[in-house]
């Protein structure tokens, strides 16, 4: 099928000096020369080394815990158990909340007191002179478990009589959408299709394990240097450690990856407790195995779609059921479920929609935020369902989407009007066009004679293409009343300073703010320095999550820089005797438009302002739109500031005898609104795609009876450079985003459609669908066997 994209509607995006340019990021050279320090690169004099004693059982009562031998070991400074803690809870259910009512009963204990609910649950903390002594102390801790029946399947955990992990009935959260008239919708359908899809536990697998160092200073402030996506956790940490909020100081470092896994509190409370008790600096670094054991996972989901469609593919009714595994403690499960519920029907006009979703506790590893936050899971289901509809109706998969795609001005599943550009057809067509004609097996780039043998056109290698469309919110739920602050100032030598609490998890969060300030103030990017990620010393900018930082902190930085620019040009207008509108700033020099030799350096201008007491800095507060919570009976109302739309298309080769899948081509097309830095946007698209491709092909935290069977990166596989082609990134800019310069968000959207695209391509290749991820060679062969058996039966 040849796809030809229609021309885009005209967009007026003026060319800018700094924004929109593929400049080298401000943090790039520090990282490439190995100069940048990460959390594990810091230490303090007289530091103690910490270790965490964890449960080996997924469901048990602690009958006896004896740490006396560990405490007595020479070189051990401190051993803490639940007995030694204030009523300490580890988790916030909403990172960075500013006084919102917290969900009842959602907390996990810092250290288990009498009961453990997952294998890996922390029970005791040790701080010792050396890591070796700390490890030996762990081995001296004596524990007796009384095993309790556990439950390891959310569908089982929902049943009456199941072991209770979360009072009273393991239901952590549920949502429902009721829109239109579902019975009427099914009544007029020409065809009704039902399918169930399953996705597994996934690990963030950031290359930097969780690490930090904490120390108490002369003000009794507990300083914590740590890799975190949320510096605002200082409040929860303070409560858990029983100190006032103003006595916890988070110095966030450049993260070696986050992806949502460092969004909840990880090592911070352990460090603070040990530092407080010993009055010495304490360092804690998770091993990889401990990281996999200790931090959250992406939610497994079982999603059932029942869809009624007309012969032309138009959806008349959609009934969707979703069950997610919340694991042992709720963490962010309710919100992941909410996002998945809202995204469940896909980026389509569905007038008659019933969605029932539930998140159920089990004794499995706990689940929480992971890039996409429930929407990738929803996408794996809705995009495969769309392809199944296309197959049943013998329609082109893109055509089935076309008759259903949302458009600007339409309302989504919660009835929220989408105001920005909805370039679904535009992105899908371009991705498919770029994917090109299907590669014939005989042309496959396989090397050996044996490979050439199998690559003949009638041989066992089948080539398939598939794509997926999606919509992903950016910015947080609007009833959270999200805000961000940034401070921008011009120094007396014309250099620019930004102060902003934003954590940078590697996607260029801080560099974007510098690029924006550089644009507004007319200075080269190198003249901007940002001080960031400090809960006490930089204005709080909220969490680096939910694809919100460019939108929130970008807007705050833009506002602050604009306020400073106004003061500067106001003073300059007196100097030049020109209206401020006739002035501009470029390369650190103020000039009269049309008279570029008539100049004043920014340094001179700053000095003039300072001498007259004019403010050379501004602290801006940006507020996302505020809304009220939705009616829980039907989930109708506004939820998000805006959405990103796009598509991913993939070509695969499947060996139908061994089941091996090779990715041949990968193309992604997203409307990012405005690319602040095109190189960075391309990098996000390629990187997010890679995680999605891994999700489809090889990633799974296998859990049996609550015990992780994939404890290290030898068993939990993420793609290497030999496993995935580079995703060709087609960046579209509609300019209609609510971020600075019309930007939307790309951090999570880049991941969301990729796995679904692979699943559709594999189904296209082998003619039968695999409804469970990952698409292992075994699952491929099992699907082919089923298809053979079905063929035999129908003859």
């Amino acid at each position: 099928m040849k796809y030809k994209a229609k021309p885009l509607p005209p967009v007026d995006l003026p060319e800018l000096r700094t924004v929109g340019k593929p400049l080298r990021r401000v943090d790039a050279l520090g990282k490439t020369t190995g100069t940048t320090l990460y959390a594990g690169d810091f230490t303090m004099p007289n530091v103690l080394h910490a270790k965490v004693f964890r449960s080996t059982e997924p469901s048990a009562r602690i009958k006896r815990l004896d740490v006396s031998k560990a405490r007595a070991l020479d070189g051990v400074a401190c051993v803490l158990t639940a007995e030694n803690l204030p009523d300490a809870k580890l988790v916030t259910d909403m990172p960075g909340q500013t006084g919102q009512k917290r969900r009842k009963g959602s907390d996990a204990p810092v250290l288990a007191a009498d009961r453990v609910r997952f294998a890996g649950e922390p029970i005791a903390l040790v701080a010792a002179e050396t890591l070796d002594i700390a490890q030996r102390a762990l081995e001296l801790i004596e524990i007796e478990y009384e095993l309790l029946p556990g439950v390891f399947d959310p569908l089982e955990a929902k049943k009456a009589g199941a072991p209770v992990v979360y009072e009273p009935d393991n239901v952590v959260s549920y949502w429902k959408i009721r829109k239109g008239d579902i019975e009427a919708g099914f009544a007029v359908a020409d065809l009704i299709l039902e399918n169930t899809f399953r996705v597994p536990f996934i690990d963030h697998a950031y290359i930097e394990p969780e690490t930090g160092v904490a120390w108490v200073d002369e003000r009794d402030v507990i300083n914590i240097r740590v890799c975190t996506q949320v510096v605002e956790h200082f409040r929860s940490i303070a409560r858990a450690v029983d100190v006032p909020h103003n006595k916890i100081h988070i110095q966030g470092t450049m993260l070696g990856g986050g992806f949502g896994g460092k969004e909840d509190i990880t090592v911070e409370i352990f460090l603070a407790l040990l530092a407080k008790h010993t009055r010495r600096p304490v360092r804690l670094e998770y091993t990889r195995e401990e990281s996999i054991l200790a931090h959250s996972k992406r939610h497994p989901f079982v999603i059932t779609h029942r869809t009624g469609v007309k012969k032309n593919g138009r959806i008349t009714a959609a009934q969707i059921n979703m069950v997610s595994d919340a694991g042992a403690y709720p963490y962010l499960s309710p919100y992941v479920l909410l996002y998945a519920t809202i995204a469940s029907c896909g980026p389509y006009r569905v007038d008659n929609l019933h969605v029932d979703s539930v998140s159920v506790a089990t004794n499995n590893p706990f689940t929480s935020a992971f890039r996409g936050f429930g929407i990738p899971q929803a996408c794996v289901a809705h995009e495969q369902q769309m392809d199944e509809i296309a197959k049943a109706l013998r329609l082109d998969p893109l055509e089935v989407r076309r008759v259903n795609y949302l458009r600007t001005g339409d309302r989504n599943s919660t009835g929220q009007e989408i105001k920005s550009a909805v370039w679904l057809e535009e992105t899908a067509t371009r991705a498919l066009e770029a994917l090109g004609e299907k590669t014939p097996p005989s042309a496959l780039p396989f090397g050996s004679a044996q490979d050439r043998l199998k690559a003949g056109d009638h041989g066992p290698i089948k080539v398939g293409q598939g794509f997926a469309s999606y919509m992903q919110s950016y910015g947080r739920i609007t009833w959270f009343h999200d805000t961000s602050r940034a401070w921008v100032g011009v120094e007396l030598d014309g250099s620019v300073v930004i102060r902003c609490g934003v954590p940078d998890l590697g996607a260029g969060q801080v560099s974007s703010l510098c690029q924006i300030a550089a644009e507004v103030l007319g200075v080269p990017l190198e003249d901007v320095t940002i001080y960031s990620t400090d809960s006490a010393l930089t204005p709080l900018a909220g969490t680096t999550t939910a694809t919100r930082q460019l939108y929130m902190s970008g807007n705050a930085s833009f506002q602050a820089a604009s306020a400073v620019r106004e003061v500067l040009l106001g003073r300059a207008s007196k100097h030049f005797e020109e209206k401020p509108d006739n002035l501009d700033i470029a390369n650190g020099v103020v000039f009269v438009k049309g008279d570029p030799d008539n100049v004043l350096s920014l340094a001179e201008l700053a000095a003039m302002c300072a001498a007259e007491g004019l403010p050379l800095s501004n602290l801006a507060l940006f507020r996302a739109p505020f809304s009220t919570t939705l009616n829980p009976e039907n989930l109708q109302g506004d939820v998000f500031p805006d959405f990103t739309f796009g598509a991913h298309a993939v070509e695969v080769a499947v060996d139908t005898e061994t089941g091996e899948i090779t990715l041949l081509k990968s193309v992604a097309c997203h409307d990012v609104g405005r690319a602040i830095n095109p190189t960075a946007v391309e990098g996000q698209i390629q990187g997010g795609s890679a995680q999605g491709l891994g999700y489809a092909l090889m990633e799974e935290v296998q859990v049996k009876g609550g015990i992780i069977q994939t404890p290290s990166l030898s068993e939990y596989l993420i793609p290497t450079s030999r496993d995935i082609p580079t995703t060709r990134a087609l960046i579209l800019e509609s300019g209609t985003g609510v971020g600075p310069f019309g930007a939307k968000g790309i951090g999570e959207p880049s991941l969301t459609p990729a796995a679904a695209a692979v699943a559709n391509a594999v189904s296209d290749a082998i003619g039968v669908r695999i409804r469970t991820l990952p698409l292992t060679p075994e699952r491929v062969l099992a699907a082919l066997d089923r298809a053979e058996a079905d063929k035999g039966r129908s003859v």
Partner: protein
Amino acid sequence: MLPKFDLLIPQTLPEALKLLAEGAPDILPLAGGTNLIVDMRGGHRRPRALIDLARLEELRGIRIDDGHVVVGGGTTIAELMTDPLIADHGRPLREAAARLGNPLIRNRATVAGNLVDASPAADTAPPLLVLNAELELASQAGTRRLPLEGFIVGPNVTLLRPDELLVTVRWPIPPPRSAATFYKIGLRKAGACSVVTTAVLVARDESGSCQEVRIALGAIAPQPIRPRAAEDVLSSQSLTDTAISEAARLSAQATNPIDDVRASAAYRRRATEVLVRRLLTEMAIT
């Protein structure tokens, strides 16, 4: 974190053997460390001492001797990939080397280490089996030679005595009209523990008909195996599709795989049959 141990660094092979004799069985030789260091960190091995072999020149080198390719046990997997003698006379080993681990691992891992560690999935074993490799084991008491076939008796268990080192691996230069190859199925294309590995060697006589076929299977039993029944079906036979299919079927039958996190036994059996069939077919038309 590694447990405590002493590290002895001999300068010569005789010195190493002496240390080994004195310290056995609580003392282990350390070559590339890509398995041993990991095992020690995981608490699976706690030797009192290690003997560092990395500097022993006597364990290095690849040469021809009396019609045999002789490879020092300390030869790294990376060296196997680039050495011209391996390219000419050990093609399946070269192909296996290219799929073992990843470039960083290959610069340290050694062929002796791979064999002595004796993982059921050891990638150098199937190619060396079809090359009819023989091992030279040295101790202070002298040296002995053992065929590779039968040396690995179970997962991580070999006939190596605690006071011995695997000093060379040798095989007869394959006959002129022979071809051999190797294939690995893993769950990703680098850094993947093998799910199934297969090596075959086909030797022809002057008239071109098949004289001898050797098949070796890895990751499908407690130790790598030569499925003799499958080989017998093909000896002095033309490599017809029917014969190849039968050999493939018998190969799969000879496996004794397990279910684990990477694959099921059923998959391993099935994939073995596919790989044997394909590799023999490829060799038949080479």
